[in-house]
Structures are given as structure tokens and as C-alpha cells.
């Protein structure tokens, strides 16, 4: 059974079919990349999967259960977690406070309306911050972080939801090569039981991390295969570069 799958998923904006008839199946524990040229429908598909946007047609299954009608909140409660393309955090919180916010929601306890000690939340927050290399920034207010650190915090926030499936929307967008390399180490180090589906433009990162790649083009799935199959595909090359040379695409 796949950890996350969709069947015949479609969504139109007026006459534009942003996503149409997409079938996708992400195996448990996979590192699945979603790539495609600009306007291929990656972000729309991502939103349909997370539940931020409702599909016109098709279904989404999470761990075998139909979650098409569930909101993003309910999907998150069932083990789906996401980071957003443009880092989107909480301006008045500290780094530790941000992570604690998500950790607290997923302890299984009710969120109480009176102050009380939460040793388990603090411990888990510390653990996550250490794992993501943000431990020494724990007390900093979020606006004081650099772009790369915010992206790290995004991942910490997503992991704080104890996800079974983690969706990352362009985790390396706007990162320097050093930050991007750091992110790769971090993602490679994720627990193997966590399934990862990520949208990414940086093809180096895609081929370093992914064990499965789906290529979207004009709202449809062009190809799903191993990184090598995708690298060798003429159809993918044409979708990206018209008829230009394959080497330019994958070695630039």
C-alpha cells in the first residue's frame, strides 16, 4: 500500500487545466521528487495533496484512507505535514516557541487555556532544534533569522507534527550552495520511516536525494521513474528545454 496516492486528480482555473488526471503513488519510506518546468502544475498539485485547495476531480488517499474531503487540519492530524515554498512563520515567536507550538498540538493532550509545565514539549523541541542545527538559536526571535535558517526552522516545524508523510515545497528555493548542501545532509538524515514527497527546482538536489522522480508537464504526469530513467528520457528533455541538449540540463 502506498503512503500517499492520488487518482485522476484535476483542478482547473477557468479554461486553464492546471492539473488534470494526475495519478501518483508514493511508497512508504520513499524519497519522491516532483519536478517539472515552470507552470507544470507542481504547486497546484502540492496544494491539492495537502488539502489547502480542493480538487475538481479525483481522490487523495493517505495511508489507504480517502482524505479527499478532509481539510488540511484533519490531514495534518492524520500524519501529513508540509513546508511552504515561501517560508511562512510566526513573526512574534522565538525559534523554540515556534517549534513548541507544533509539538504541543501533537502530544495527544488538549491545548489547555491555563499556563502549566510541559516538560515533554520542551524536551521534544530541544531534540528537534538540535537535530536541525538550530539549538544555539533557540531563544532568537524568528525575524532575526537568516533565510537559510528560516528554511531549517520550516523543516523543524514540519517535523514537529510527527509526520508519516512529509511534503516539502521547494525546500532549497533561494538558498546559497552551502545552505543547500546543509539541507541535503539534513533531509538525508531524516528517519527512514518518514515518507518524503518534495517539489524542487534544484535538479542536483533532486538527483542526490530522490529514489523516485515524477515529472509533471502541462498539468499531466509525463513520467515516473528512477532518477536514472528520468535523466535518460528524451521526453523530459524536450519538456524542459525544447530540443536543446540533454547535457545542458543535467550538468549546468
Amino acid at each position, binding site marked *: 500500500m502506498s503512503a500517499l496516492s492520488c487518482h485522476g486528480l484535476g483542478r482547473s482555473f477557468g479554461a486553464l487545466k492546471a492539473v488534470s488526471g494526475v495519478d501518483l503513488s508514493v511508497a512508504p519510506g520513499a524519497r519522491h521528487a516532483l519536478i517539472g518546468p515552470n507552470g507544470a502544475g507542481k504547486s497546484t498539485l502540492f496544494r491539492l495533496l*495537502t488539502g*489547502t485547495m480542493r480538487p475538481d476531480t479525483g481522490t487523495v488517499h493517505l495511508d489507504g484512507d480517502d482524505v479527499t474531503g478532509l*481539510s*488540511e*487540519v484533519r490531514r*495534518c*492530524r492524520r500524519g501529513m*505535514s*508540509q513546508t*511552504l515554498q*515561501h*517560508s*511562512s*512563520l*510566526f*513573526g*512574534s*515567536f*522565538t525559534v*523554540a*516557541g515556534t517549534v*513548541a*507550538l*507544533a509539538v*504541543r*498540538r*501533537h502530544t495527544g493532550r488538549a*491545548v*489547555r*487555556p*491555563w*499556563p*502549566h509545565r*510541559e516538560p515533554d*514539549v*520542551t524536551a521534544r*523541541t530541544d531534540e528537534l532544534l538540535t537535530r536541525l542545527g538550530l539549538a544555539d538559536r*533557540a*531563544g*532568537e*526571535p*524568528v*525575524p532575526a533569522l537568516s*533565510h537559510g535558517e*528560516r528554511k531549517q526552522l520550516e523543516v523543524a*516545524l*514540519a517535523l*514537529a*507534527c510527527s509526520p508519516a508523510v512529509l511534503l516539502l515545497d521547494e525546500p532549497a528555493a*533561494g538558498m546559497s550552495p552551502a545552505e543547500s548542501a546543509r539541507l541535503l545532509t539534513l533531509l538525508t538524515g531524516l528517519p527512514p520511516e518518514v515518507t518524503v514527497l518534495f517539489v524542487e527546482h534544484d535538479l542536483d538536489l533532486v538527483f542526490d536525494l530522490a529514489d523516485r522522480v515524477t515529472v509533471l508537464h502541462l498539468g499531466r504526469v509525463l513520467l515516473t521513474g528512477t532518477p536514472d530513467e528520468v535523466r535518460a528520457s528524451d521526453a523530459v528533455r524536450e519538456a524542459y528545454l525544447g530540443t536543446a541538449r540533454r547535457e545542458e540540463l543535467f550538468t549546468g
Partner: protein
Amino acid sequence: MTEVSRRVPAAPPAGADGSPPPRRLPRPGPAIAVVVVLVLAAAPLFLAPYATTTLTRMLVFGLLAVSLDLLVGITGLPSLGHAAYFGAGAYAAGWVSLHVTAAIPVPLLVGAAVGGIAAALTGWVAVRSAGVYFLMLTLAIGEVLAQLAHSWQSVTGGADGLAGIPAPALGGEPLANTGFLYWYVLAVGLVMFAAVWLLARSPFGTALRGIRDNEPRMRAVGYPTTLYKYAAFVAAGTVAGAAGSLLAAQQRLVTPADVGFTTAALVLLAVVIGGAGSLWGPVLGAAIVVLVRDALGPGLGGHGELLLGIVFVLVVYLLPRGAAGIGSLRVRRRRS
């Protein structure tokens, strides 16, 4: 490209997560709070009765401002209809005092309950919207309830209002003395303020601040934000209802003006002047508003509102975070 959304001037980072805000000077908060409470408690002993009454009105209005700050400053929902729940509580407390009993916890509890119920009945529509739509919906709800106060003659007394409300009674003795009435209002106000303070510092209050900062992200980490906003709305309505019961006890008269737009706008003004999100700032803001409107206004030939307008413009330009922001303003200057 990278954006940390920040809709409302921020409160100091919460202590709920156990981490102190970084690079701040040690704050003398608790000591100041104790001194303020002691001075407030002793005030009737050295103030003239009229001044005591003005101080009582400030406290009533201050509690209303605190309840609104829970919405505006903590949750990020600027409401223009908050006086409706204040008025509902005031009418309910007044009616109970007139027709049933004025024995002390009763009008207070009835006022709080009615304020909460009114917020629960009308809030669901409001919290499903955001921004300007929320502002307009709360305005509409407030006007509807003010109209109800006007036309439901048999209960509210119509345009004349509910007059001749008896003073609240403690153990059979009515609190006719301005000093005793003041202490009653102060005691209820402090308890309610403490409750809102704790709520704002709880995990729930932290989640409300998260919603204020970035609601879509809160949904993405699994918080049902509409439900949380609704709970905050009802809590704020309950506290406003309790403040309304204090108004009935102090003024001994409730009129449709206490429910309507002018009152709602003045509280919002008090919250902004005082500094949204700090909870104590709005009390200060409320005191300024009452002082200008009731104490200085008559001396200016009824132009108190004009003075309020000038104060408001000055505060917005000079103190973007309200009176509560004065401390951090000074700290920032010293640092740079």
C-alpha cells in the same frame, strides 16, 4: 520573497514556552504590578467621591478594553461590535438586579453568562471572516443588538434605558457608598484581568498569537483555527459581559448608547492608544479615554472627542505600539 507575516504589533514573546525573550533588560513587571494594585486599592481613602467614581468608570471601561484586547491584540481580530456584549451583560445584570436580586455574585454571573451567550450566538458568523470583513460583520452585529436594545421596550426600557437599578448588595447590605462600590469593581476587575492574563499566557493563548501572526501556517500544523478564534470570541464576550454588569452596578442606568457604535469605537481606540496585545496597556488607554471624555470633556465645552482624536493621532505617530510600547522604545534607543 521570504516573508514573516506580522499583522499586529507584537506582544513580548510569550513565557508559555519557557524561554525568556532574548536581549532584554530584566523587567520590573511584578514589582510594578504590586505597587499599582496597592495604590488602586488605597485610592478611595484619599480621593474625593467624584474622583473615586471617575476611577470606577475607568476600571469598568478598562476591563472592557482588556476583553477586547484578547481579540484585537492576542488573536488579531479587530472588532467594532464589542460593545454589544458589554451592553448585553449590562442589561442582563440590570434586569436581574431590578426584578430578581441584586445580591452580589448574581448580577455579575448573569451579566457574564449573557455576554458569553450573545457572543456564542453571533460569533460563529464573524470568526469565519477576516480583516475588513470581520470589522464590518462585527459592526453589523453590534448595530443589530443596539437596535434590539432600542425596540425591546418591555425588557430594556427602550430609548430611556433601564433606570433605577439597585446597587449590588453584599450580605443584604447595598453598596451605596462610592468607596465600597469602587472596591467591588476593583476586585472583580482584578480577578477578571488575572484570568485573561493567564489565558493569554497559556498554551491556548500562545496558539491564538500564532493565529494572529500566521493563520494559514497554524492550519498547516494542525490547529483548527476557526474553532480557536470562536473560543476566543466567546471568552472575550464573557469578560465584556462581566464588565457590563459592573457598568450597571456603577451607573445604575443602562441605555442603548452603551451597546452602540460609539462605545465600541471608543474601546477600540482605548486598545490602540494603550497598545494592543499587552493587556495592561489597554487599561491605561481606557483610563485616558474616560479621563478625556468625562473629566476634561465638559471643561472643553463638549469637545472631548476632538481632544481624543488628537491624542489618537499623536499616539499612532509617536508610539506605534501604544502606551505599552514606551518601555521598549526607550530600551531600543539606549541600545542604538
